């Protein structure tokens, strides 16, 4: 019997619209595009896994094909699943390391100065490129000192006074690389009258899925579903300020990992959606004017999930802000994709138009919801990049 979990490939009309909007097919002749790698090739693969075409590794899982598809085919899901379902497993130290953000993060935050210095040390990077195929030109994320969880537990008592609570899924980036964003999230939620609680979360699993470590990803996902279900027992909202973490918890767990997340799915919200709802219900905290020109870049996964609108609506509420919406397109980095030497040139080429448009607008800051989009835009433009929550906090401070 052929095991068919996702039979949406059968709804494909072969219209090729997805391929028009595929950022990778646009720049790389090596990727035949989502239609061919997804629904077309799936018909062959289900009969004979030996017909697996290696070119589907070029897919970044940005999901733009699914946004474009007029027939609701889950094209990117088909491609992602095929990557690990039909391909033999080969151990790659790099993919293992990139996938295990927590394994790397925990020791790195203990010696953040040393790690950051090493990450910027050219000979070490050349060696890393040679040994692990991590591109020299791609700056590695900087590590903060200690973990955000540690900071939070030191300040947890400040959350006791709030009657209403929100569970905050902070993600690895906040925990190891950007405590300031985590503190801003707490501040913003407090300003809205919500106390924050954390759970014993682990990495959402996105980098593991990207590396093909699917069993490990499932293990993480089961753990997260478990702790979040227990923590949000009183129908509390679960908030994440990472567009990709929220997308994974909400959509990738059932669609890619085949797990039942129904206990939490309805309560997971990307932060701007949560904040927007609070604003609608009122009272709205006072937002001070920010005389800035900002360009907003909507991350692919937030667009797929449906949520860019909330960020845009919140930004519009900041007085004095001159908001420019960037043309909807992929920045190219796609999480760990841009950290792989073989894909780095593709990642850079995909984002070229976006970078050009940003430079043409000359904004004071670029706003985006995703940490890896932030790295990519900061690497390729002269502009600083902030999270919308940070900007909202700045406005609260005025």
């Amino acid at each position: 019997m052929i095991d068919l979990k996702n039979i949406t490939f059968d709804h494909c009309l072969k219209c090729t619209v997805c391929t028009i909007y595929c950022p990778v097919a646009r720049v790389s002749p090596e990727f035949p595009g989502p239609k061919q790698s997804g629904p077309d090739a799936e018909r062959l693969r289900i009969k004979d896994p030996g017909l697996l075409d290696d070119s589907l590794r070029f897919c970044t899982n940005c999901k733009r094909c699914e946004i474009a598809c007029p027939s609701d085919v889950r094209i990117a899901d088909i491609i992602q699943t095929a990557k690990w379902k039909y391909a033999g497993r080969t151990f790659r130290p790099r993919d293992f390391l990139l996938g295990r953000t927590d394994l790397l993060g925990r020791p790195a935050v203990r010696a953040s100065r040393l790690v950051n210095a090493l990450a910027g040390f050219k000979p070490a990077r050349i060696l890393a490129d040679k040994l692990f195929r991590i591109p020299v030109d791609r700056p590695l994320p900087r590590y903060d000192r200690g973990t955000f969880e540690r900071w939070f537990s030191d300040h947890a008592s400040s959350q006791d006074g709030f009657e209403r609570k929100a569970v905050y899924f902070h993600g690895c980036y906040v925990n190891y690389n950007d405590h300031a964003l985590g503190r801003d999230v707490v501040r913003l939620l407090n300003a809205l009258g919500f106390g924050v609680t954390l759970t014993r979360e682990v990495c959402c699993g996105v980098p593991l899925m990207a590396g093909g470590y699917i069993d490990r990803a499932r293990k993480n996902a089961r753990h997260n579903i478990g702790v979040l279900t227990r923590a949000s027992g009183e129908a509390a909202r679960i908030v994440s300020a990472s567009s990709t973490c929220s997308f994974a918890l909400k959509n990738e767990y059932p669609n890619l990992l085949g797990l039942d997340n129904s206990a939490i799915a309805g309560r997971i919200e990307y932060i701007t959606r949560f904040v927007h709802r609070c604003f609608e219900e009122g009272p709205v905290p006072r937002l001070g004017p920010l005389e800035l020109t900002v360009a907003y870049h909507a991350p692919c996964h937030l667009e797929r999930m449906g949520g860019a609108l909330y960020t845009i609506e919140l930004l519009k509420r900041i007085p004095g802000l001159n908001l420019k919406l960037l043309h909807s397109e992929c920045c190219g980095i796609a999480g760990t994709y841009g950290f792989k030497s073989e894909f780095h040139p593709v990642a850079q080429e995909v984002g070229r138009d976006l970078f050009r448009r940003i430079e043409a607008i000359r904004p004071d800051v670029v706003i985006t919801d995703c940490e890896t989009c932030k790295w990519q835009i900061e690497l390729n433009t002269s502009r600083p990049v902030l999270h919308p929550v940070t900007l909202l906090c700045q406005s609260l401070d005025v």
Partner: protein
Amino acid sequence: MKYDCIIIGGGLAGLTCGLKCLDDGLSCAIISAGMSALHFSSGSIDLLGYDPPGQVVPAPFETLSRFIEARPGHPYAKCGPETIEASLDFFRRELLAEGLEICSNGRDNHFHVTALGTLRPTYLSQASVFNERIREAFFRQPRIAVLTVKGFRDFHPGLAAANLRRNALFKDCEIVTGQIELPWFEQTPQNPHEFRSIDLGRMFDSGRGLGLVAARVKEAARGAVFVGLPAVIGFEDYNRVMKRLMDLTELIIYEVPTLPPSILGLRMDNALKSRFAARGGVFIAGDRVIGGEITGGRLDHVHTRNYGDSRLRAGHFVLAGGSFFSGGLVSEFDRMSEPVFGLEMDYQPGRGNWYSPAFLDRRGHPFLEYGVKTDQALRPLDRHGRPVENLLCVGAVLAGYNPVKEGSGGGTAIATGFQAALRVAAD
């Protein structure tokens, strides 16, 4: 979230409506589930190509009043000739602002050539398909070359030329065919058969090697002054690429629409969306409206698959979800429905009545005329048969016209979209 107008559907009708709303100073959001039928269209706008007996209409505005009088239920009758003309002018201005020039043959129809080499009457075309120079050159009955790109699967000059030769309009033309090899193919490991229109369009956009392409076109044209090529001559930078190619070859180059994805249609889609964004419209892509609440004869809000329990509110809503292909209408074994609100449909029950057994029947297929029933103001009836005050239906979701048989699809989308925006602004 609240807007003056929320439009369900981001195709030709929805985008025209959205642009007119913004033009009138209204706030507007479009929710679009997947890319629209423009991606499969010729990129020309048909207004009224054939009269009821099936004869070609030479000048649509001369027959439109009579046509409307005879068919009071037709969407055109709900707009009126003045609004139809104003909508087309508006449409052309909006596209021109994005650099896409749309030409007409005065107030007459003109023909555009299909990939099969047949002629279709149409009213508006992109400059690479119809302009004064093309018209004049054609009257001199020039030697014509129909060329393609070597390896390209979606256009076959032999087929097109064979049909053109059978056409009386071309009886004094000598038609030659040929193919050119693109220099870009020499630098890629791929087989030329793998390239689709969009890949070729982007190669032209790069602008590199155009001199060599021009030399090959000229050689393959074998003395013809008029060259038909598949519509792949630039996707974004088409104006500059086309001008350079014509300057370099000193030939008149004509674009023939290809199998999907159709670059002529894509250019239009791109220009409309860019214009909509530039005017401050909110375009939500890849999301589907799954329902809404109608109370007291008014649609209060809609919800979408992605936005879940969030209510998207608006003073007015416009349903522009398209026909069966786009999912704006749904057919089951023996019934048809409008899936978002369950609006009352105008159709003949019984599957046997829906289509003619002859695929290319000149009388057309009846199902193409089925759709949502509306009053003269484009307002529909809800599932209980009660009118919905602030919901308007536009484009292919409407009943009462046959876009294929009449050659009226584009015109209906633009005119009704424009008309709906006028009504929203007037309220």
